[in-house]
């Protein structure tokens, strides 16, 4: 639609560590989708959420009222944002080595400043980098991509214009580009015959996205090395 090939992702721009208050933060751009993410913790959280054997993870997804094509009334708290928050929580519970911080809590906050498709995928990528910035031990950097099917052919990294159709789309997140799926979410109906191709494409694109994220994380750590000593 915007001059990309079907299997081409949009440009990814990132910047790590821009929020001084937070332990880790990340700003990521997938083309026009812009996401800001902050990670607080691990800290001694609320007693009600405390778990004895591992740390609890609290995610909050919100999108600015001006992020979409039409104005939203509330930035968060509606069903969809809560659902995305839950999804993120679940995905990152399996990414973060939660056993290393018993009785503590990690807060992850995602803010979609501008949404132009693949918001969930962009959030996952942003969170992975923010967690890396915060130095929280993980099984690997999670990378995600949204993949759709048009006339039996898979296309990746959908824009909001492409998402509005009746297009079936799968959001897939893997760890370190390997065949380890931590999140899969499907919207609209997808014929079983296409499932295989979509999964394969999404998986390989996740690996590509991972390459980008890994480079960014490494660069950032290298830049921080003199400060950390």
């Amino acid at each position, binding site marked *: 639609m915007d001059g990309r090939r079907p299997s081409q992702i949009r440009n990814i721009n990132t910047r790590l560590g821009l*929020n001084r208050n937070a332990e880790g933060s990340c700003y990521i*751009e997938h083309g026009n989708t812009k996401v800001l993410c902050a990670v607080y913790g691990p800290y001694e959280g609320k007693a009600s959420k405390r778990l004895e054997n591992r740390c609890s993870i609290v995610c909050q997804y919100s999108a*600015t009222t*001006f992020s979409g094509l039409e104005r939203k009334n509330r930035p968060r708290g509606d069903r969809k944002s809560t659902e995305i928050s839950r999804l993120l929580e679940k995905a990152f519970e399996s990414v973060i080595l939660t056993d290393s911080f018993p009785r503590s809590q990690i807060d992850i*906050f995602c803010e979609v*400043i501008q949404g132009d498709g693949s918001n969930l995928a962009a959030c996952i990528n942003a969170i992975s980098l923010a967690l890396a910035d915060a130095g929280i031990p993980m099984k690997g950097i999670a990378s995600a991509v949204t993949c759709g099917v048009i006339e039996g052919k898979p296309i990746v990294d959908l824009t909001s214009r492409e998402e509005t159709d009746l297009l079936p789309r799968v959001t897939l997140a893997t760890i370190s580009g390997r065949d380890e799926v931590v999140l899969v979410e499907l919207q609209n109906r997808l014929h079983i015959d296409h499932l295989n191709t979509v999964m394969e494409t999404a998986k390989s694109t996740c690996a590509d996205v991972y390459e980008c994220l890994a480079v960014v994380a490494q660069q950032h750590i290298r830049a921080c090395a003199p400060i950390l000593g």
Partner: protein
Amino acid sequence: MEVYLSDDEKLFLIAGIEDNIRNDGRTCADFRQVVLEQGVLTGTNGSCRVQLGHTTDVLAGIKLELESFDKDSEKNTPPPFKFFVDFSANASSQFAGKGGDEYAEELSAALTTAYSNSYDILGNLKKVQLADGYRWKIYVDVTVLQWNGSVIDAISLGVIGALHNLSIPEVEISPDDGGKVSIVLKRPRTGGNVRDEEVPVDTWKLDVSRCPLLVTVSKIGTGNVIDCTPEEETCIRSQLWVGLTPISNNDFEVTCVKQVGSGLLEIESVNEMISLSSGAVKGLHSALLHRLKTEEYRKPGHSFLL
């Protein structure tokens, strides 16, 4: 972000302020460094991002919506603005969930009061009334991305920046059947094979030279301070939001005063604080107007935090 200071640290700060010296080398009437960028979001009709002292970070976006209203029931047409402030949980984990809602409500109420007579201060605002019963509704949404004191100052700057950046499409109005009107976006006539949708719509801009600025003035010890840092905010006695609207050059009118938080103030010190703020705002306002005029427009697709 919670700031905890010991009593000695507080005493140090207070004593410094009473001598007109602050920790970061400013005097009491100085603002921190302000960074203002316009047109940062392509998905909005107008947007602006303001950074105050590198850490307080505010993003304002404006969306326009065509609204129909009952002309007879609204004798004094209310301003077309709708302000909404949201604290992103990114700014501080205390704003997670509904944590920031109360404060945000207060802020949007203050903005609404400051802009209550906006037909007077924005010279060409009448133009948003398109026809009988139709007007542009201007949704001004502000998101606080990072929070480090003096949010309202940054927000008011952000709103002005966004309003200046706002481009309202020109429309053609033609009467329709049954007393209705049809409203069509006006596009410049171009020949050739260019499709209508590809031609940019004609737009006009608001005159923001007389928009109100809101300033936080705090009473610390016996001194009055503008633009507090969070450290300083821990030792304030009382805080005022002062809304100032420029009338002419170097002349300001107070349009809104609101006490924030607890604490007592004498009438004299209120006057003192207001005069301090109006003095400080003069410099800020002229700097703002200069910035708005000279700021070069960014390339589209430029990522705004890089």
